[in-house]
């Protein structure tokens, strides 16, 4: 008897398969954010389940369960150092779900697994919130629904009906989701998750410039920020210098920015002669405080300041994506250099080699003007066989000399750093600016996408007559890099065979197909819309939305109760409507069929009231052989509409048409 009972409650294979596929879709956010053994163990547990299930095995012994849980806890503790926080918490849920999968074998436990999987989906959003992850989790969510429906359908093995039902349920839920999204109050009570705190600080922008710090980003396709030009004034790609951090402190090939720059006073824009370029910038979270703007920002958003060197600096670290508006001008406002400021701009490291000094002296001979010195230095880079390469290799301790006189192979940071150092040697105030150059224009969404790979470093030197001027030594060595953008530059190099690194060439070729290019741009646009319209809809945005529709200033209770009431009303309306529709539909089918019976009776085949539709159609076909084909199709349609599991309105229309045609033809 025991065996029998177990057999009755065994989880059927198909719902289990749906559940497994759903769990696979819940995995992507875990990869990359949690330690890789967590999702791997989860996958192993899932695989083991499929091996165990047909054999009727499951994790029975309490002893082993306790051992497994203890093992999991200690593993998590050793890998995180504590069990507090989002990631250890999510890891714990994932691992406990794995154990549950091994243990589950009854119908009740199947339900628990579904519930836990739903929680897992929600946890995924703690780890990542981008569009791809959101879609993945939506699929997982739907498949869980399908698994649950399939489970309750029993031994029926049909594939589509559960999927259809799940789709219908989700479609019905969609208006409620929108309603709650817009109106449900967002509380910010100081209880803040620091979502995904362990951002890889190695891949990204930095306030420290050293050989290799920018070139390490060349393979990163991660998005740095997106920019829109609301006034439609788009500068050329070669002039699109996105200013990040200005570095003052020189160590030869290494430069540093101040850790916590002061704020500049607000400039009066009347002093600016030219027209500004307005930008909307949506910056990705990077946990640091720099913000980007085109050269040179003159006004800045709230919560940020303009640091000396005219770059934006956020008051708080940017832990989540942020959108701000900034206006830049093609000249620096307040372009003065006070007497006290000149000294630090000529600061140099102690160890400058005689060779470098000799080189600079050859330029400054004869009391040359700063502009002439700059020209000579650029000429030096142009004529002495310097090469531009994204992977120039390591530079040792005496990097400056090695770069200038021996290897002559470098990336933008080498050129910017060495150029600025040489300028200081020549007595010209200079500084290094790091940021991004160019970007990819998305013609569908009309915005620029700037990736980490677009990172760039350049120089600014000070001329007594015109103040700070931008000088980009990279433009001399590799003009295409500046004018075409980094990815086009790489492509051209690959085409010319100058790049031995063939990785990604195929992908780039594929990407040039119009359909792929369109799809990519479309996806980027969607993703941008997701970030700016959905993810950024926080308490403040909601407040301004309420103000816009004129219901601002009510308490949260009003919105909670209100949105729930509206949701219930919507549901009631929907139920009533479907009820009325099906009733009306049933009546209509019956009316049409009765009219068909009357017509048939007139032709000599009256229906016996106790005769079923199939019997009647057979008899009528015998009695009216000329119309037998028509009678058969009418009877089939009627049976499908009246007695079959689901009838669609299409058939009803056809049925009505067939019946009305029946009298005309006869």
């Amino acid at each position, binding site marked *: *008897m025991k*065996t*029998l009972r177990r057999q009755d409650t065994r989880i059927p294979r198909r719902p289990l398969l749906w559940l497994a596929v759903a769990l696979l879709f819940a995995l992507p956010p875990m990869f990359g954010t949690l330690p890789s053994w967590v999702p791997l163990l989860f996958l192993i547990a899932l695989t083991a389940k499929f091996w165990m299930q047909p054999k009727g095995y499951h994790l029975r012994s309490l002893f082993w369960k306790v051992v497994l849980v203890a093992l999991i806890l200690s593993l998590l503790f050793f890998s995180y150092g504590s069990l507090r926080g989002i990631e250890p918490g999510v890891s714990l849920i994932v691992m406990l779900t794995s154990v549950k999968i091994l243990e589950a074998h009854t119908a009740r436990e199947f339900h628990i697994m579904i519930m836990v999987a739903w929680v897992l989906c929600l946890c995924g959003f703690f780890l990542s919130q981008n569009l791809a992850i959101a879609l993945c989790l939506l699929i997982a969510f739907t498949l869980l629904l399908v698994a649950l429906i399939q489970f309750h359908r*029993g031994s029926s093995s049909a594939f589509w009906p559960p999927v259809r039902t799940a789709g219908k349920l989700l479609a019905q839920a969609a208006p409620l989701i929108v309603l709650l999204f817009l109106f449900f109050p967002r509380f910010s009570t100081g209880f803040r998750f620091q979502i995904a705190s362990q951002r890889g600080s190695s891949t990204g922008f930095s306030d420290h410039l050293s050989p290799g710090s920018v070139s390490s980003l060349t393979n990163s396709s991660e998005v740095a920020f997106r920019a829109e030009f609301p006034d439609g004034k788009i500068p050329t790609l070669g002039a699109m210098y996105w200013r990040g951090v200005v570095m003052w402190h020189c160590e030869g090939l290494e430069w540093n920015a101040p850790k916590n720059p002061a704020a500049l006073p607000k400039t009066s824009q009347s002093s600016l002669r030219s027209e500004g370029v307005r930008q909307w910038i949506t910056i990705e979270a990077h946990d640091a405080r720099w913000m980007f703007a085109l050269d040179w920002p003159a006004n800045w958003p709230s919560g940020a300041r303009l640091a000396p060197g005219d770059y934006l600096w956020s008051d708080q670290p940017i832990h989540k994506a942020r959108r701000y508006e900034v206006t830049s001008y093609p000249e620096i406002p307040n372009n003065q250099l006070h007497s006290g400021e000149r000294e630090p701009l000529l600061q140099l490291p102690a160890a400058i080699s005689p060779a470098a000094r000799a080189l600079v002296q050859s330029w400054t001979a004869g009391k040359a003007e700063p502009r002439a010195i700059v020209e000579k230095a650029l000429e030096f880079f142009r004529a002495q066989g310097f090469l531009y390469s994204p992977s120039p290799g390591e530079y040792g301790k005496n990097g400056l000399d090695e770069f200038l006189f021996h290897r002559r192979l470098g990336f933008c940071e080498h050129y910017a750093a060495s150029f600025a150092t040489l300028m200081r040697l020549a007595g010209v105030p200079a500084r290094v600016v790091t940021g991004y150059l160019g970007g990819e224009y998305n013609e569908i969404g009309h915005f620029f996408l700037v990736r980490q790979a677009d990172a760039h470093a350049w120089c600014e030197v000070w001329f007594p007559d015109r103040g700070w001027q931008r000088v980009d030594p990279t433009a001399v060595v590799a003009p295409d890099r500046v004018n075409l953008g980094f990815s086009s530059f790489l492509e051209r190099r690959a085409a010319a065979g100058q790049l031995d690194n063939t990785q990604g060439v195929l992908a780039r070729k594929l990407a040039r197909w119009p359909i792929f290019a369109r799809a990519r741009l479309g996806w980027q646009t969607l993703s941008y819309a997701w970030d700016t319209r959905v993810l950024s809809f926080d308490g403040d945005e909601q407040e301004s939305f309420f103000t816009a529709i004129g219901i601002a200033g009510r308490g949260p209770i009003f919105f909670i109760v209100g949105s729930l009431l509206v949701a219930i009303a919507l549901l009631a309306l929907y139920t009533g409507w479907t009820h009325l529709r099906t009733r009306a539909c049933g009546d209509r089918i*019956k009316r049409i069929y009765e009219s068909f019976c009357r017509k048939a009776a007139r032709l000599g085949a009256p229906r016996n009231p*106790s005769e*079923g539709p*199939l*019997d009647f159609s057979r008899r009528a076909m015998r009695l009216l052989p000329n119309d037998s084909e028509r009678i058969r199709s009418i009877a089939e349609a009627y049976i499908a509409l009246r*007695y079959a599991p689901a009838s669609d309105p299409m058939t009803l229309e056809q049925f009505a048409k067939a019946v009305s045609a029946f009298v005309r033809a006869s």
Partner: protein
Amino acid sequence: MDEKAAQDLLHQRSFIGRPMHSTLLASDRDPEIRFDTKKQIAAFTNQICEVIVGKTEAVKLAVACLLARGHLLIEDIPGVGKTTLSQALARSLGLAFQRIQFTSDLLPADILGNSIFDRNEQRFVFHQGPLFSQVVLIDEVNRATAKTQSALLEAMEEHQISADGVTYELPRPFFVIATQNPQYQVGTFPLPESQLDRFLMRIELGVPDRASERAMLLGMDRREMLKELNPVFGAETLLEIQAKVRTIHTSSALLDYLQDLLDASRQRHRSGLSPRAGLALLHASQAWAMMNGRDMVLPEDIQAVGTAVMAHRLGHDIEQSGQSGRTLAAALLNSVPVP
């Protein structure tokens, strides 16, 4: 397989409802393998029709009864093939089969089982009776006294047997085929109404027509034919089909018709059809629809099984002479309009 061997095998397997011939059929080894239900049922029906010549309608009703998880009562005069039909059903299913001949001196313990003192173990041990089987043929059910007949009640309805305060579960599937002689024969105890209601259907075989009888007279010995029957499907497949039968769609229009029938029976007769009879009608018509390869029940399905399901439930209400349950059921089906 003779009955002794079947019983031994059954005991070895301790009634877990496993198929007896699991090695014979791939579909029993792996429940995931697809099977064409309609074809399989047709093959099953055809095999039985080869043995019971000329009684296709009765055989189909018997199969529908089996698929609807109901018990079958066959009423007819001796010698028309009642026992042969039930044996053919049991053998074609490859299920454990028991036959109990009811007599007027049969006692409940004879069919349920006895507790006998075991000298070695120094305790009473329950020895299961012949009712512990998957297909039970009860021959001449109306020859036993009411006491023995009602002992069948629990077994048929609850699929379990209580003896000496212990409840024993019966194997699955559990299918009772009872035969009875017409009431007018000598030495019969009519089945009580409650007992009759527990049979899903009552069918009559009747004398075969001339051609069929000639075929039978010319053909092989029926007993030889029975021995050569192979199981068409096993217990697990049967359980699966039985589960599927319950999922056959019944639209609200059909349920309207079914309820109209029930209402009409209650208005016309002193004790009309019970709610259980309504369920029986529904399940039997679902099985009939499935046998005809449909995924929905039509009024025609109810009409096809209606007489077999309703006749014995209405039959005890006869006031006017010459009115049998069959004619009452037929009158009901002919007069209630299909909505």
